[in-house]
């Protein structure tokens, strides 16, 4: 950038301000990886859970999540640490999103601990889908990304569905299928669309 101040008039000053503001405005990270990672992990976990439940091997459901959960957590930790090192700028959106998803993670762990200690898993799907809906809808709103907003709203719809199943006489296994569907519309589809948008914006 030239620094010849003599030739720097008011019009050029305004151009500099506009140009630099647009540099920051376009500085949106590729947020798709974690949505795709957790989308696939939870869908696979629910598919296995459904299989174990229908095969009347319910004990294996817990083992499935005990493997998939920490595995996802480990990949997430490595990914976040690597991204943090590469990052040259931090926006207010980055900070807000970090706190939002940390809160989500704490709430999720607390729910799981309460249910394991209380030995009552009947509302596990509706509760997890509800807090996932809060985090996803907020993220979609902050990023102004419609597929994520719709996906976030659908989490609440699926949460209601799983709740109705849990209090009805229907087979509880269907909750696993609904949870997998919620992850498809809430994480996978918006995740792939987010990735495509990021790539087309950064060509």
């Amino acid at each position, binding site marked *: *950038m*030239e*620094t*010849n*101040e003599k030739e*720097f008039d*008011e*019009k*050029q*000053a*305004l151009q*500099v*301000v506009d*140009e*630099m*503001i647009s*540099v*920051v*405005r376009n*500085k949106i990270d590729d947020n798709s990886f974690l949505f795709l990672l957790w989308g696939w992990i939870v869908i696979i976990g629910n598919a296995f859970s459904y299989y174990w439940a229908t095969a009347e091997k319910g004990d294996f459901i817990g083992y499935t999540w005990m493997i998939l959960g920490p595995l996802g957590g480990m990949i997430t930790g490595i990914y976040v640490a690597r991204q943090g*090192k590469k990052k*040259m*700028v*931090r*926006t*207010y959106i*980055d*900070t807000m999103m970090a706190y939002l998803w940390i809160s989500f993670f704490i709430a999720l762990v607390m729910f799981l601990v309460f249910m394991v200690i209380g030995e009552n898993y009947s509302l596990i799907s509706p509760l997890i889908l509800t807090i996932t809906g809060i985090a996803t809808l907020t993220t979609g709103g902050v990023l102004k990304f419609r597929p994520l907003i719709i996906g976030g709203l659908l989490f609440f719809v699926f949460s209601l569905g799983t709740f109705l199943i849990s209090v009805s006489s229907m087979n509880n296994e269907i909750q696993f299928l609904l949870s997998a569907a919620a992850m498809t519309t809430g994480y996978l589809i918006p995740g792939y669309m987010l990735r495509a948008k990021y790539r087309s914006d950064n060509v």
Partner: protein
Amino acid sequence: MFKELDPLLHSQLRLAVMSLLLGVEEAEFNFLKESTGATAGNLSVQLNKLKDAGYISVKKKFRDNYPLTLCKITVKGAGAFGVYTKALKEYLNPKS
């Protein structure tokens, strides 16, 4: 009567840095260097001027044994930037 433009901001590189910092929470020296296309030496000099005026804060850290300079706009800097852009608009649209 036109307001005088803040001479500290009425410089291409310093104004670019302030415009970038206004939209972020904090930015690394290298981000500012890449975005403005300035040389490291020139950018350092201009950052010091903004820092001395209290318009930005500069934090020096280490990441993986490499020095890391993080810059952040201050409340005083954001206020000065607002006054500057308002004065700029008056220059460009004197009737409004």
